[in-house]
């Protein structure tokens, strides 16, 4: 009971902290719009001479980009990873080590608190951009399938938090992690389906991606929510739960192993 209240306290603290930075909220809404704008300009030129591409009409494609960009926009773990890495290198990570909660649980709760606010912002700004760009709102009307999509989004956010935390832990060993983070971010943007829908890739590559968790974080939920696929949640859920379990054990092992090298005085 004590840990649950601690978790809620951590979540609400970071939620309130985010709410004080209203300019950041505005920028987030505008940046989401910029990504949708890019998709609108590119795909309106492509669809000018083509009917359906990969089974997607222009309206499907635009709705896909709004949903995928929105789901990716909910994730706050990327910035959190940079922050953790920076704090390790400056020697101030000690403040997490003395808390009555493990750092991995602490960061999970922190991410959940921030993701909650980001989720609200994303939903509201997605509606705004759908109206502004006049995208037909052909969202799935089946509440059970929308629930399945939300389930995958939640699993995906948990995975991404552990994933970014794992990379941040390398700061115990490496002085300059920025390069690795930027390489990771470039590849991750593609793997999450934010660049192009996987339906345009070769079949073999798509089948391989289905065995990785990235397929189910934003791409698959966006297809379900946009009524573009029949959901098969068993396989996807199993994949996600396996990868989350692997990551959970990995980050805890990494923390226990690497913290021994930590001197708390900065690199």
């Amino acid at each position, binding site marked *: 009971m004590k840990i649950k209240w601690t978790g809620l306290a951590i979540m609400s603290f970071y939620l309130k902290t985010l709410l004080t930075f209203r300019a950041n909220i505005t920028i987030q809404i505008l940046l989401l719009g910029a*990504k949708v704008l890019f998709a609108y300009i590119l795909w309106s*030129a492509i669809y000018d001479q*083509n009917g359906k591409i990969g089974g997607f009409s222009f309206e499907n494609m635009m709705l896909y980009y709004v949903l995928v960009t929105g789901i990716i926009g909910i994730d706050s773990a990327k910035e959190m990873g940079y922050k953790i890495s920076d704090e390790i290198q400056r020697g101030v990570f000690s403040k997490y080590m003395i808390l009555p909660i493990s750092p991995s649980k602490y960061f999970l709760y922190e991410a959940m608190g921030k993701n909650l606010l980001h989720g609200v912002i994303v939903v509201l700004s997605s509606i705004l951009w759908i109206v502004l760009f006049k995208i037909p709102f052909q969202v799935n009307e089946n509440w059970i399938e929308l629930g399945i999509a939300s389930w995958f989004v939640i699993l995906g956010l948990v995975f991404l938090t552990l994933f970014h935390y794992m990379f941040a832990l390398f700061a115990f060993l490496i002085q300059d992690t920025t390069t690795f983070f930027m390489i990771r971010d470039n590849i991750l943007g593609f793997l999450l389906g934010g*660049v192009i829908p996987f339906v345009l890739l070769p079949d073999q590559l798509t089948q391989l991606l289905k065995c990785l968790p990235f397929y189910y974080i934003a791409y698959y939920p966006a297809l379900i929510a946009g009524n573009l696929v029949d959901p098969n949640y068993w396989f996807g859920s199993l994949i996600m739960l396996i990868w989350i379990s692997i990551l959970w054990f990995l980050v805890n092992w990494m923390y226990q192993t690497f913290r021994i090298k930590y001197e708390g005085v900065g690199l």
Partner: protein
Amino acid sequence: MKTISKYSRLFMCLLQMRLAKQATSGISFIGPFLVDGIMFGIQILTFSAIYTNITSIGGWQKGEIILFIGSFSLINALNMTLYFFGVISIPDKIKSGRLNYYLTKPVNSLFYISFESINLGSGLLIVLSFSILLYGVKILNKPISMVQVGVYAYVIILMTILFYDIMLLFRTIAFYLIEADGLLRVEEECIGLCMQIPGVLFQRVFKIVFYFILPYGIMGTIPAQVLAGTVKRNNLILATLITILFTMVAICFWNYSRGKYNSASS
């Protein structure tokens, strides 16, 4: 002549100092090459996937798109090698007061700041960019004349200067704002947008914005058109005039803003 000689020697000194420092840095030396190399690789993969389903985008064939990616990559590579790491530090120098150090030197402070952080590791990106361009020329399957190569080199130099001007303009605003991060994120998104979409696809208000106000839209487009043999003389004149205009505005704005600088926490 004396000034050119002086600044040439300064440039060589800055280059030598930078080489000595970077020789010890390992991954930081080739970091920009890895990061941007992967980014442009993903872009090529993306458009290759799109072109397996269609034949053209806005009248542009696959070869032209690859030339566009290669051209933007080349401009980015020159930017990252020569002045990127110098110019991005300007807001931090203004905020912390370290700009004083540069203003007291008997050389042009803007020149010093811009070229003190030359990154030769990013020069590998230039090699990568030429590979992309050769790939694009091969797919396009059109002969390229020496005149086209000459004009292409001229346009690339112009666009590299233009990129510098816009970067400088965004960062000079830090003289007037306590926090300029939001503005820099807007710049980042505009670059991200224009390096993935040829300027010819922009219509109406977007064309005005990305051709004349934030002319990222012409940076990769016009060089690609030169190599593809589809460039019009008006576009070359436009590129030249816009570069001259932005250079004058950027330098004047910098000189004016420097006069308003009050040292730390301005």
